[in-house]
């Protein structure tokens, strides 16, 4: 290799690195948020990560027992639970406990019927105004996408659920109906602390500490935000392995084809 060519190569390699680094910087810059959040290890992290099945079942229980009184989950149908280890019968049992407004019937009236596997989780409020009037003016967001819709994702949600303080730091005035939270941007949050020791009874005997429930419901909501994740990662590993082999083969072909030119 000539000095000239090597020089050019070094410059361009450097430039490529700079561009990639720049992309990284720019995106991490976008990611800087308000409150403070610690990173935690999640079962669904990394390229081999999967949703912890026990955590999902417990998380559903926490959602149903605690969150669902204010927050909807409108993009999730009961049948979606079958993708993560619930049997068809279990799903029917879960669905039947809900009352779904259906209709209109032949007489033109709406009627209530028990839920079916194809129904989506009904939202607790009829509309935004109803939600706000029941919650001191605050709107409890739908939770289907919450893990993807917040900077920090699962870590943020866990930080929020475990970040409540009875006493705000000195000098911070917490208005009536608000609470102080470490993770929430601005720290003053309309949602009262949702989780208390023993808020739900876990069927599998796990102790329902605040941390445990927060981790479980975070796992459940991470799934509800990215239900395709396990399939996506499994496919990704195969696709990338295939592409690496393909690149190797194509490189060999390229070398062979170019042998008479070099």
């Amino acid at each position, binding site marked *: 290799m000539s000095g000239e060519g090597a020089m050019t190569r070094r410059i361009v390699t450097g430039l490529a690195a700079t561009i990639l680094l720049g992309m990284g910087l*720019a995106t991490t810059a976008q990611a800087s948020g308000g409150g403070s959040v610690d990173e935690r290890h999640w079962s669904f992290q990394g390229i081999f990560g999967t949703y912890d099945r026990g955590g999902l079942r417990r998380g559903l229980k926490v959602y149903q027992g605690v969150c669902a009184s204010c927050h909807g989950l409108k993009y999730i149908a009961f049948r979606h639970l079958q993708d993560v280890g619930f049997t068809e019968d279990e799903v029917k049992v879960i669905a039947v406990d809900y009352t779904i407004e259906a209709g209109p019937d032949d007489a033109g009236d709406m009627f209530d019927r028990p839920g079916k596997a194809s129904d989506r989780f009904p939202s607790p409020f009829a509309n935004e105004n109803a939600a706000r009037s029941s919650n001191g003016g605050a709107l409890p967001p739908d939770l289907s996408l919450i893990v993807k819709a917040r900077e920090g994702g699962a870590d943020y949600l866990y930080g929020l659920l475990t970040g409540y303080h009875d006493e705000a730091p000195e000098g911070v005035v917490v208005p009536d109906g608000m609470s102080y939270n470490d993770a929430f941007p601005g720290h003053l949050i309309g949602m009262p602390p949702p989780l208390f020791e023993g808020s739900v009874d876990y069927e599998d005997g796990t102790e329902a500490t605040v941390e445990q429930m927060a981790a479980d419901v975070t796992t459940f909501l991470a799934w509800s935000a990215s239900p395709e994740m396990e399939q996506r990662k499994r496919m990704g590993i195969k696709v*990338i392995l295939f592409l*690496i082999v393909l*690149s190797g083969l194509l490189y060999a072909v390229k070398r062979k084809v170019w042998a008479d030119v070099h």
Partner: protein
Amino acid sequence: MAAPAMNNRMIKWFDDRLPVFSFMHHQMHEYPTPRNLNYWWNFGSLAGVMLVIMIVTGIVLAMNYTPTADLAFGSVERIMRDVNYGWLLRYIHANGASMFFIVVYIHIFRGLFYGSYKSPREVLWWLGIVILLLMMATAFMGYVLPWGQMSFWGATVITNLFSAFPLVGDAIVTWLWGGFSVDNPTLNRFYSLHYLLPFVIVGVVVLHLWALHTHGSNNPKGIDTKGPQDSIPFHPYYTVKDLFGTAVFFIVYAAFIFFFPDYLGHADNYIPANPLVTPPHIVPEWYFLPFYAILRAFDFDIWFMPAKLLGVLAMFASILILFLLPWLDTSRVRSGTFRPIFKWFFVILIIDCVVLGYVGAKAPNDPLIASEETVAQENEAYNACVAKADEAGKVGEDECDKPFVVQYVHLGQLATLYYFFHFLLLLPILGRTERTLPLPTSILEPVTKHGAGAGK
């Protein structure tokens, strides 16, 4: 160029009447290509591959998408959850936009370094800029379609830019919106145009290739091919090289699709659009950040021109200036390889663009160096000083030194200044004054000779 041998009589019969086979043979098979193209020349065909991927996935997504303000967000979630492999299609398409831009940006910077815009390839270069502009419009409108918070507020901010133009500005904005705010009509027309523009891009790409094939590819040495010994047929040499490059590029692309599908996006776009709630930071997609930084660098008025108009003009000028590049760069030597000073300014230009992108992602008035606490302390001291002076009956603002905090916008201004300096002053002067290295006499001549020749 001889007509290809046609053994099949049917094909020969057809080709006599419409010579598509001969045409393809000339343009894609025997097309003489400089033998010394390096891997930076892969990015042109890669951009073509990306365009096809975007159109194919886009058409299938359109079969499942609903372009109505009330239903758009939900229909995207339906694609993600209930359409078979809908998540794959959407992630290929959404990350594909980013990949398309990174490929095209590398393609452009390759052209900038090797002087691919110089005679006789000016029109080829222009067509490339037209493609870039069309891509930007298409990408911008595509980002609006999921109707999330960033979609809505990004659309509001960017369309509002046109209101900076005197007299007609507000009328233009109303016309773009199809109403008096970004709303359902805006979404409908953006969807229509987002479907249309890619095919316009295809048309301009055909012209781009036509212009390319008229004079052939430039090459790393930037000198003309002087005979058949300098070039090789496109197929199989460059087809296989492009295929190899594409496979390697797909590894990176696939890593984003399958493992970090939302890394390049913004969390706020998973919140449905809400005209009543403005997100704390409205940021465009990463590929617009450098232009966003130039737009926001102008936080001051000049004479009768308000800051907003200046920013808009500068942002458009930063691209339009490229149309003049073939004449702004006065050097007769095409390739940066033989331009020892240009080479380093080229590196600075790239760093400059990265800095602009970095600044574009930040809140302009956040302190650049000092910590938030230091700034708060200084402001407190200043306020105390003003209060004290006011008490003493003087005008506090005159008496006290307002603390100067270096902010992101200042870095953005510096970087914007360099960007225009590079194209408007540096390149014209450098082209006349720089002592370039001796050019090789032919493409065939190994570059090593040049190193040996330096000792003679």
